């Protein structure tokens, strides 16, 4: 009798952990799929809206346009990227040890999902590695613009 109970318990536990595993797996692979979709779309948007200034390889253009290769700037300003993209930027900033003071135009027409896709692309190219960034995060970040 006791043995049977034991076996049932073991079965239950393994079933439970197995379903947990499946759940977790499907979640992460959904994020994986989203990540890939965002990255590819983001690349297209980058070519359309950003590449002329920041260059194909993200190196910018001398002191006229800053590079997007300053990984620590991108990492620490992850939550401001949406604001920079949507509303533009016109302050003094230091990128890769160099000072820039120029004007980046706004992209008011871009939707939250466009912005998130752009961030997934630039945030995981040119040496950057900030991982996934969702449209809902863009939506939230756009309510807290600092610049």
């Amino acid at each position, binding site marked *: 009798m006791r043995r049977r109970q034991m076996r049932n318990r073991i079965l239950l536990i393994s079933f439970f952990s197995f379903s947990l595993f499946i759940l977790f797996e499907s979640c992460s692979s959904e994020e994986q799929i989203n990540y890939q979709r965002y990255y590819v779309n983001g690349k297209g948007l980058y070519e359309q809206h950003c590449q*002329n*200034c920041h*260059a194909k390889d993200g190196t910018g*253009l*001398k*002191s*006229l*346009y800053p590079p997007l290769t300053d990984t620590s700037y991108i990492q620490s300003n992850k939550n401001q990227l949406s604001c920079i993209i949507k509303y533009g930027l016109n302050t003094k900033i230091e990128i890769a040890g160099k000072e820039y003071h*120029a004007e980046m*135009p706004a992209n008011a027409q871009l939707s939250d999902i466009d912005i998130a896709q752009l961030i997934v692309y630039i945030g995981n190219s040119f040496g950057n590695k900030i991982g996934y960034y969702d449209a809902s995060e863009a939506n939230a970040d756009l309510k807290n613009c600092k610049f």
Partner: protein
Amino acid sequence: MRIFFIFLLAGLTLQGCKNETKSELPILGHREPVERQVEGKTVVDTIYQTIEPFSYLNQDSTLVTEKDFNGKIYVADFFFTSCNTICPVMHRNMLNVYEKFKGNPKVKFLSHSIDSKYDVPSKLKKYADKLGIEGTQWEFVHGSSDSIYNVSAKNYLVAAYEDKTDPQGFVHQGWFILVDENKHMRGAYDGTKDDQVEQMVADMQILLNEKKTNEK
């Protein structure tokens, strides 16, 4: 027999390749035949379009005229400093070409601003500084809008004019125009396209090697 055909084919292909590498550049623009009499016979000369005399202020507020380009080949283009569409791409490419010919006394660059209201010499200076350009090998010039639009259309055959319906206020094309020592146009390249800019570099080399034969 088969071997023979293969050789023939290879020979023809090589021949085809050879014809593609041009060693002479055409003279662009309009031309006029002019007749003159030589020892009782009629000889027809061709007068090619040349860049007309000009005078502008550069980034150092110094007067720049066509004389500064005598005996040199140069690349001309049209831009404005606040342009955020094709200009950054053009000047990223132009900068690469400039780096290749930097210090060569026979090569110059001439960028005309088409925004005469905003791009006064001090603005051009700031722009040149930010692009890392020193000296006068690459001139950024300011002129009245009439003279610039006239020169772009008439001399360099490039469209550039003000347009209130354009989001940036100007219509202009991203051509790089290659001009030889005799102020004849020898090539036009889309300054936003890598392969065309590469072609221009090759053509500049051809011009530098060209003997001054067309001088009349």
